């Protein structure tokens, strides 16, 4: 295809991506270096019969005008990056000096909002992904063993948790685990603890969110594995059977190696999705006990006191995290691409 024709075909799509994905990233990078103007303070001297007093007051009008004229605010360099709400370099250094053990250091880090959010995001990502892989494979193997008639309805039901709007899915589960809901009440009577609430403590909230993540993501792994199972070579399976391999060994040594490329694909998607976990925390109203990088940004942008600078810094750090996650994939694709060209 000629370069010019290519350009005309791709132009609308490329323009949309540059304007609304690439430029916003630049805009975030710029915003992260600025901070809202501080309020203009006027010092006036009032002199009366008993001497002069200095009066300090905030000039609201001047502040508004200043903020109107320069919406970006004032240049702050990397100041926002290192403040207590973000990388908190000073607090981390202090914690490193004072803490007696690694555990203590970790506990101190958990008091800093960004590290707390990072801890949850990473825990969520790296607990949900392997469990989703395992459960997805088990369900796929199970469905593959069913009579053909039953497979359709099972796939239908399985698609529901995945396709439902994440916020709505988490609300549905949230109402069920409510202390007056069906699961919440059953757990209370099962554990004989009438005050049990899954929303009350940090570990229970984390577990709830992770369970939601598994419920939401397993269908994807299941469908992909199920499709992969249809292409497992029958000959190899039969050969393994002749060699005396039992059911478990056939799965372990024939099926799983055949599905390995799919495992890589699902892991990649899960890591990317897990890293931006957001809606469940809103849906479960879990903000008090769990926060992710995305909810930090969301909270900065909401309400009357929007902190663009702060949100931008967290965004840049999140983008760096995504970049780190993606690097191995990009390197691998680059190598494959060069190999096919040679």
């Amino acid at each position, binding site marked *: 295809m000629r370069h010019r024709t290519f350009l005309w075909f791709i132009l609308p799509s490329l323009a949309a991506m540059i304007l609304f994905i690439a430029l916003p990233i630049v*805009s975030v990078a710029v915003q992260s270096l600025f901070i809202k103007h501080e309020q203009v303070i006027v010092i006036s001297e009032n002199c009366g019969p008993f001497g002069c007093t200095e009066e300090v007051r905030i000039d609201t009008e001047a502040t508004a005008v200043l903020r109107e004229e320069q919406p970006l605010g004032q240049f702050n360099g990397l100041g926002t990056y290192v403040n207590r709400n973000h990388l908190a370099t000073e607090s981390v250094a202090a914690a490193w000096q004072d803490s007696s053990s690694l555990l203590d250091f970790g506990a101190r880090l958990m008091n800093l909002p960004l590290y707390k959010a990072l801890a949850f995001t990473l825990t969520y990502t790296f607990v949900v992904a392997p469990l989703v892989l395992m459960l997805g494979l088990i369900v796929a193997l199970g469905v593959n063993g069913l009579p053909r008639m039953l497979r359709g309805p099972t796939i239908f039901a399985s698609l529901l948790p995945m396709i439902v709007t994440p916020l709505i899915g988490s609300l549905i589960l949230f109402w069920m685990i409510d202390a007056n809901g069906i699961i919440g009440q059953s757990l209370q009577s099962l554990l004989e603890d009438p005050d049990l609430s899954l929303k009350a403590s940090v570990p229970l909230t984390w577990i709830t969110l992770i369970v939601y993540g598994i419920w939401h993501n397993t269908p994807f792994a299941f469908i992909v594995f199920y499709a*992969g199972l249809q292409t497992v070579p029958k000959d190899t399976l039969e050969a393994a059977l002749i060699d005396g391999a039992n059911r478990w060994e056939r799965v372990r040594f024939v099926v799983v190696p055949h599905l390995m490329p*799919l495992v890589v694909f699902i892991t990649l998607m899960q890591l990317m999705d897990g890293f*931006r976990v957001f809606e469940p925390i809103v849906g479960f109203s879990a903000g008090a006990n769990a926060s992710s990088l995305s909810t930090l940004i969301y909270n900065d942008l909401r309400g009357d006191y929007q902190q663009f600078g702060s949100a931008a810094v967290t965004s840049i750090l999140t983008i760096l995290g995504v970049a780190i996650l*993606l690097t191995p994939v990009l390197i691998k694709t680059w190598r494959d691409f060069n190999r096919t060209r040679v």
Partner: protein
Amino acid sequence: MATALNRRSKTAMAISISLVALWFIIASFPFLWTFWGSFKVQGDFFSRSDWRNAITGISTVRETGGYFTLNGYFGAWIEEEFWRAVLNTGIVVVCTVTISLTVGTLGGYALARSGHRYAFWLLMLALIFRAMPHITLVSGYLMPFFEWNLWGHLPTTIIVLVAINQPFTLWMLHSFFLNIPKDLDESAMVDGCTRFQAFRHVIVPVMWPGVITTGLFSFLLAYNDFAVTAMLLSEENQTMVPRIASFLGTTQTQGDVMLAVAAVVSATVPLFVLIMFFQRQIVSGLTAGAVKG
């Protein structure tokens, strides 16, 4: 030998069936339960004394006189004007899917037929863009949109959703077009068509299965979005999902969470219908990216 492979021991069969049955319940029960509960009053769905009240509906009979009540739906749709949000969602979703498919088919076709090195780089760039958390992009939009008075309107949101959709749409359609033989459009060009005419008269008629599958996923992305619609739309332009989220804030003070339950069920119905009609396409779309690498 094939029979030996297919013959399974009874215990293995029983285990696999019970596992699948368990999964079936885990996957579908929450939806059935919430659907059923949406026709009850709060005293039953969130019963203090016994969860079985939600099934028998004791309070519902006492409060409304019937086993089922439409109070939640009435409150949400009429009193809280949820229909407005439904209408907005309809506009946003239809426009987003149409525009992103139009733009995406052109781009995907070009990427599949180019063969130059830069096409590969564009695809890589799209992959990186696809991994960006949407909320980070939103934090880039907000300030400029406020400055230029673009904030709060439906068209802005539609264009943003189209752009966010593009990386995925390009990838998917690109791999569909790779499966359409090159000879088809090239022979048309030998016969004197320009590239665009070849695309218009030869490729468009055969591309619909791929476009429909991609359209389904674009629909889901636009319909399920929360980050963009919640942050970029003003209150009267809100779509369903952010509207439901804001219900939660207001209804808890009124003590009537059933409005939110009814709204949630209403918003799930279209998805349910979608799976019913397009199950095959959804499954094939999910696996298309995976199996091809």
